């Protein structure tokens, strides 16, 4: 009995190795037939998720692509890239794009530097006081709408985009610290022993050692923060309390949202596609950089 089950397991292992070759599995022994059935069952588990994605994301997105190259909903004339040209030359789109990119360049940089400094301090120098970390992680769970009131009261009269940036940093530093800290905790302490023997100071050690080791986590954190900066709409919409914020607060999200409310599908479709392309480009560059750095 025991031997039998072991040999059975072996056939299964073999069939698992030939996993990509479906024909190989289907003509195999009864064991691999079972494996095939198991495989089918596993694939069935994916069905609900895929169906949802197709209905709510993929098919509609294909339609958005289609909308972005026709002139309007009624004539449906194919106009190549006219909508894109129009969107790109629209001054509101340009303003929105500028503000969104500024948030990525300035907001994300400050966020990242702060998160790195805090994660390092609370993991090394101030390890005893690591309970302080919770204070930085907590805001990530606080619903934005609940703290916007305080924000408005603090910064009433201040005519600048600064409060939105602060809200962004306040809300997003938690996840950055979690990601960076979890990368730091798995570094083996022996590495530092060696460096200390060579007489390296703390600053040099972390700059030369820790940072390169956790580079993949840093890249992932940057990527995630950029993605989160695209989600700033919630914060700025609630903070400004209007669909038409001052120029400095007008980001891509407002642009898309307001066009949505106007049911201007062509503009909306082309700017959605452009934003999607921007995100894709950032993701692709991010992964490329990460790969290069890992080697």
């Amino acid at each position, binding site marked *: 009995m025991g031997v039998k089950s072991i040999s059975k397991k072996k056939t299964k292992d073999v069939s698992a190795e030939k996993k990509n070759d479906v024909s190989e599995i289907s003509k195999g022994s009864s064991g691999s037939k079972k494996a095939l059935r198991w495989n089918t069952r596993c694939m069935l588990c994916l069905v609900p998720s895929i169906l949802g994605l197709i209905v709510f994301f993929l*098919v509609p997105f294909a339609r958005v692509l289609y909308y972005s190259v026709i002139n309007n909903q009624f004539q449906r004339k194919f106009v190549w890239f006219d909508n894109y040209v129009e969107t790109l030359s629209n001054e509101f789109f340009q303003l929105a794009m500028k503000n969104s990119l500024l948030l990525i360049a300035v907001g994300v940089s400050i966020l990242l530097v702060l998160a790195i400094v805090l994660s390092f301090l609370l993991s090394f120098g101030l390890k005893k006081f690591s309970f302080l970390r919770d204070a930085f992680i907590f805001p990530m769970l606080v619903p934005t709408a609940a703290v916007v009131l305080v924000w408005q*009261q603090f910064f009433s009269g201040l005519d600048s985009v600064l409060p939105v940036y602060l809200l962004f940093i306040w809300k997003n530093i938690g996840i950055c610290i979690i990601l960076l800290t979890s990368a730091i905790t798995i570094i083996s302490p022996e590495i530092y022993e060696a460096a200390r023997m060579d007489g390296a100071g703390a600053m040099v050690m972390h700059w030369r050692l820790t940072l390169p080791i956790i580079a993949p986590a840093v890249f992932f954190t940057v990527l995630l923060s950029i993605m989160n900066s695209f989600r700033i709409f919630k914060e700025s919409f609630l903070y400004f309390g209007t669909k038409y914020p001052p120029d400095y607060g007008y980001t891509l999200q407002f642009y898309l*949202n307001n066009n949505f409310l106007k049911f201007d599908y062509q503009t909306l479709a082309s700017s959605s596609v452009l934003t999607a392309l921007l995100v894709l480009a950032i993701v692709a560059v991010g992964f490329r950089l990460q790969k290069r750095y890992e080697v």
Partner: protein
Amino acid sequence: MSKAKGKKQVFLLFIVVLAAAIIFLIPVAATVVQSLQTDGVLSLAGYQELLLNCFPFYQMFWNSVLYAAAITVGAILISILAAFAFQFAQFRAKKLLYILYIVLMMMPLQVMVLPNYIGLRELGLLDTRAAIIVPLVFSPLGTVVLRQYMEGNDVQVVEAARLETNSCLRIMWHCVLPQLRVCIYAVALFLFAEAWNLVEQPILYVRNDDKRNLSIFFSQMDQYEGNVLYPAAVLFMLPVFLWYLMYHRELKEGLKYQ
């Protein structure tokens, strides 16, 4: 000598970080303090006004609970199934499909608003509560995180269990879920916090406030009289805060593996 200097340095750093931590907690603390005062005097009048006279609050609070609960439960179930499939099924375009999940996960909401809206319109779901719940149930975030975590799991248990049964659901329940517990808690808390924080979907997919959640309550602050907003904000934070306390450890543990 240098040790004393080091101690002093640590102390200074501690003060700086402590100050930063306090600054980070101020917004929440200030909200609580503000909710407890009326015209500068300590009182619960705000809460009284809110709970006794502000009818929309109940309706919107209930909507928030309904949306957050439905989205969290639905998304977790679908994500577990999908992550399991990604981990154990073998098929041709698996890697490509997984990349698609990641890309969709990264897409900002505003890009997906029009596609979602079109999908909902075709299904006749616009202006219903389902319009807010259903698309989010299929958000790929849970699948990606759970799958990532599953890769570090013990596969041998599953292999052994397959000798006994061929049922995916039984294997999932007995061999995979126990290992995933921590991660599921973390993902659930994440999804709940996000769903509790919904702003865009209720504005765009439903027409009336009776189907909107509490976040929207705060975007119409000028409509309400007296000090009802700060008490409402405190009550709004409370559920997420309680959940955070409950799964505090699990969350940190779970995210270690992300």
